[in-house]
């Protein structure tokens, strides 16, 4: 059983192995400034590795043929899962326009069908494999694309009446935009890829080295197995349990909102809209440093979740305690560039380089975000009961030049200035300070009946934000969890039997304290992570005792 640090170390060994074995030679780096210092990871192989660190991640590698995309993910699979390279190779779905459902998903068991009339499905290797690769996804016909849609989204494959649930997998797809047999990929399909990276031709020095490498068509590389599938899956649990800093969390939401809002039309419903002279001419926001004019399509909720997921993975990989804003900003272009439909007029200024444009969009959002941040903080302060008339005035004045303030903040700000709301916050604050559990529960219960839903939700969020400051992490093993789950159910007063069928995440909300339980795998050694948000140590002690002390508390 490896500790978090050992697992992290192994990942860096895997990255080094990729470099040493000259599997993918691209001397380009992803530079990340964090509060802990500046970091650098190889751009392509680093991001490809990142995809394996999030549960059921799907990644798109976008680039010309012969750049080594497939080889990189094949060998990375070997390094990170220990699967034999032949097995990985055998499960690759090599796309072509003739690929039909039977060749992708599975076939009926003919013997059983003829003899017993049973529609038993023999699933294809690709479906069952942990390390899934779709080579040249652009060659999949639209109907074949539909087949893999639910696999990408929920890990579910249906054939006749049978359903195969792929509980744990890592998926990569390569895409060659210059291929003649290309079918356009639908937006919902693209949206299901959590992250995408553009692969360009190697640098001159890398080219020089590539020329000297042995022919990989004759000689297979001898790649060691560094991690096992179970170890990799354990990492998912650690990544999932990473906390996100409030500013970073705010940025993720603001990014999605900025891309979705428009002062003139509803991007959600205006599917035939064309951003450009017709809509934007004369619009006050066109001349401001806003991104509404750049994008036709809103950013999906899935994209937001993916941004959080991959940011967590990067923060975990770098050994950070939580996800800072800089990590989110670094990852954001890779998460959004392939999912959005940009305005051609503006895209042209960037030579139709969608990734570069997405980076520009993220930078514009960041600029506006930093300008708006004190206002948003003042808004949060107001929800927490602190009224600064000067800042409230500034928020109200900002509504003319800021879509987020105009549509998301200004319309409801007055609700939090009401005496009833402020009284509740003040009561809650003093109870938090004196750590009176009964009082807190009573206030929240009373507030439910007295406040309107927006106010009540703001009050509970404020309380949760206070709890988050007192987060404690309890880590145990699934074997231990399994043995004591009944006792734990009794202590917590909830049925936890569902947690015995991972991957599962359970939230135990006890009004005044919250527990988040993350279980990724059912192996005895697999970690069970409990994030306890509580002001009191009582519940932590109880859990620890119930687990027979076989846990670590951070």
């Amino acid at each position, binding site marked *: 059983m490896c500790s978090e640090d050992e697992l992290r170390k192994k990942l860096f060994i895997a990255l080094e192995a990729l470099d040493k074995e000259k599997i993918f030679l691209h001397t380009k780096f992803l530079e990340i400034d964090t509060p802990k210092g500046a970091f650098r990871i190889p751009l392509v192989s680093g991001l490809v590795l990142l995809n394996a660190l999030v549960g059921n991640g799907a990644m798109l590698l976008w680039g010309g043929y012969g750049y080594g995309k497939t080889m990189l993910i094949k060998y990375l699979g070997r390094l990170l899962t220990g699967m034999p390279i032949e097995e990985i190779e055998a499960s690759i779905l090599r796309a072509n326009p003739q690929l039909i459902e039977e060749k992708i998903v599975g076939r009926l068991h003919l013997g059983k069908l003829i003899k017993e009339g049973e529609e038993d499905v023999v699933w294809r290797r690709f479906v069952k494999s942990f390390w899934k690769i779709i080579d040249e996804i652009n060659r999949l016909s639209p109907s074949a694309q539909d087949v893999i849609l639910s696999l990408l989204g929920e890990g579910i494959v249906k054939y006749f009446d049978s359903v195969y649930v792929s509980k744990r997998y890592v998926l990569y797809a390569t895409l060659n935009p210059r291929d003649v047999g290309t079918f356009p990929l639908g937006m919902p399909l693209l949206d299901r890829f959590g992250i995408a990276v553009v692969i360009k031709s190697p640098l001159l020095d890398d080219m020089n080295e590539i020329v000297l490498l042995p022919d990989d068509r004759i000689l297979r590389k001898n790649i060691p197995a560094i991690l096992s599938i179970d170890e990799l899956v354990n990492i998912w649990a650690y990544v999932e349990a990473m906390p996100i800093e409030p500013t970073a969390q705010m940025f993720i939401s603001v990014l999605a909102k900025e891309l979705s809002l428009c002062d003139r039309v509803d991007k959600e419903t205006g599917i035939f809209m064309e951003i450009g002279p017709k809509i934007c001419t004369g619009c006050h926001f066109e*001349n401001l440093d806003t991104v509404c004019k750049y994008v036709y399509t809103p950013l999906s909720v899935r994209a937001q979740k993916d941004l959080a997921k991959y940011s967590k993975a990067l923060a975990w990989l770098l050994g950070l305690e939580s996800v800072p804003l800089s990590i989110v*900003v670094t990852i954001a272009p890779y998460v959004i560039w392939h999912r959005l439909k940009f305005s051609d007029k503006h895209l042209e200024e960037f030579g139709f380089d969608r990734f570069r444009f997405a980076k520009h969009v*993220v*930078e*514009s959002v960041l600029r506006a975000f*930093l*300008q708006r941040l004190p*206002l948003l903080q*003042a808004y949060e302060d107001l929800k927490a009961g602190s009224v600064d008339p000067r800042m409230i005035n500034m928020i109200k004045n*900002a509504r003319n030049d800021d879509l987020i303030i105009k549509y998301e903040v200004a319309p409801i700000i007055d609700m939090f200035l009401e005496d009833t709301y402020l009284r509740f916050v003040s009561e809650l604050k003093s109870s938090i300070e004196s750590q009176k559990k009964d009082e807190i529960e009573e206030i929240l219960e009373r507030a439910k009946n007295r406040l309107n839903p927006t106010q009540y939700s703001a009050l509970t969020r404020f309380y949760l934000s206070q709890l988050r400051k007192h987060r404690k992490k309890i880590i145990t093993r699934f074997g231990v969890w399994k043995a004591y789950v009944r006792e734990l159910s009794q202590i917590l007063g909830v049925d936890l039997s569902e947690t015995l069928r991972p991957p599962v995440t359970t939230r135990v909300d006890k009004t005044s304290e919250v527990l988040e339980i993350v279980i990724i795998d059912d192996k005895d050694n697999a970690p069970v992570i409990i994030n306890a948000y509580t002001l009191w140590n009582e519940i932590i002690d109880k859990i620890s005792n119930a687990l027979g002390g076989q846990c670590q508390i951070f």
Partner: protein
Amino acid sequence: MSLPSELIDLDELIQNFEEYMMRVGKRRACERLVELGGVSDIFDTRIENVLELITKFCGGLYVAKFKQSLRARLLAFGSPITPDFISTFGVFVSQIISRVLDPHVPLLTIRRDFQKLADQYRIKVNKEDIVSLNHAQFHESIYLSEIFWYILNKIGVLDHPDFPRMFVECLKRVGNGLSVEKTIIATRPLFYLKLADKKVFEEACRGLSNNFDGLLGFSISAAYSMISYMLQRGVAIPSISALLAALTMDSSEMLLLYEKACNGDESLIYLILNKVITVYYRGPIFKIIGGILSGRIKAKNAIELLLHAPYTTASIQNIRQTFKFILEVSEKLSEEEGFERQIFNLLTKMAFEARPAIIRRFLELDDSRRLIAELIIKLPSKLILVALNRLIATYAPTIRHIGHSSDDLCSELKKTLNAVLPDWRETLDVRTIKYLGLK
């Protein structure tokens, strides 16, 4: 009472213009108006009336004629204000701005003017509310800048759609002559314009592109606007987004800027200044060096600044000053992380950017050899040796006569070289060895 055929009083003419025009005819009346208006004081409040009457009754030709005479007088008085500015914003605003932008009007006078206006408009700025920066000498200018933009805001000009463009045009006219203090005051309203976009800041910085002091003032103004807002001490939202766009900052630079602003860290000034210098500064290097030597900039920031400064126009004196400056700060900063790399980058930058003839002539000076030798001794580093070796080997003069370093210096130099680069006799270029007088 009937009007005389020849009116000589402007007030009388303005009051009875229509009647006078009917009596003597349009042409004569308009000519008279232009003539009398043309000799009034440049910020005479009646100019607005004259402009109004000419526009209403006389037509484009007379408007042009009057504006031309007004322009000539404004130029003669050294005012950056244009007749169009006066006709759009009036004499009152024009006069305030003209005085702020006039390099010859001392701060004391501006302070007196502002205090009167602040009383008039009931503007209250407490000196205690000003977020304190360590640069005490600029505290007064920041205070005045705060009053300045409050006044303009109260009058309503900051909301006018033409104000950003016209104000920046005025600023550009005097940009090269403005002091740090004056630029702090003059550029402050830019951050509170209703319609500020990236172009406004770009144009303002271009207007100051030959003026190091001006760019420093702009950076202080920007940093102060950000800090006071981030610390929630301001009353309005400065256009941070447009500023960051004009500075072409990438996301990590933006985050660093934000962090510094939130902590009230005044090194934010230099972060902005570095960027402004890199993107906009077109003036000579000696002005930057002058700014550094004046002690207004901390040594650590000064090195960063030099790394962004253009050495293309550097003179021998500037190269010498840079070396002297490095020597001066090396004792204090040699332990700092990254200092060695910074000096290496600076030497490399000088070698690439400065004119070869200038470097060659610098190297020819006896004093230069001593400076270089001292640098090697004071800052024993392989990296710096590599940079110096490259500089000397590339540009060393065709050595006709090279003096020898003094015995003490020579032995000290050898000692350092032996410690840093034991095989220096093989590694260093023969020209470098000769130049340093080691053979």
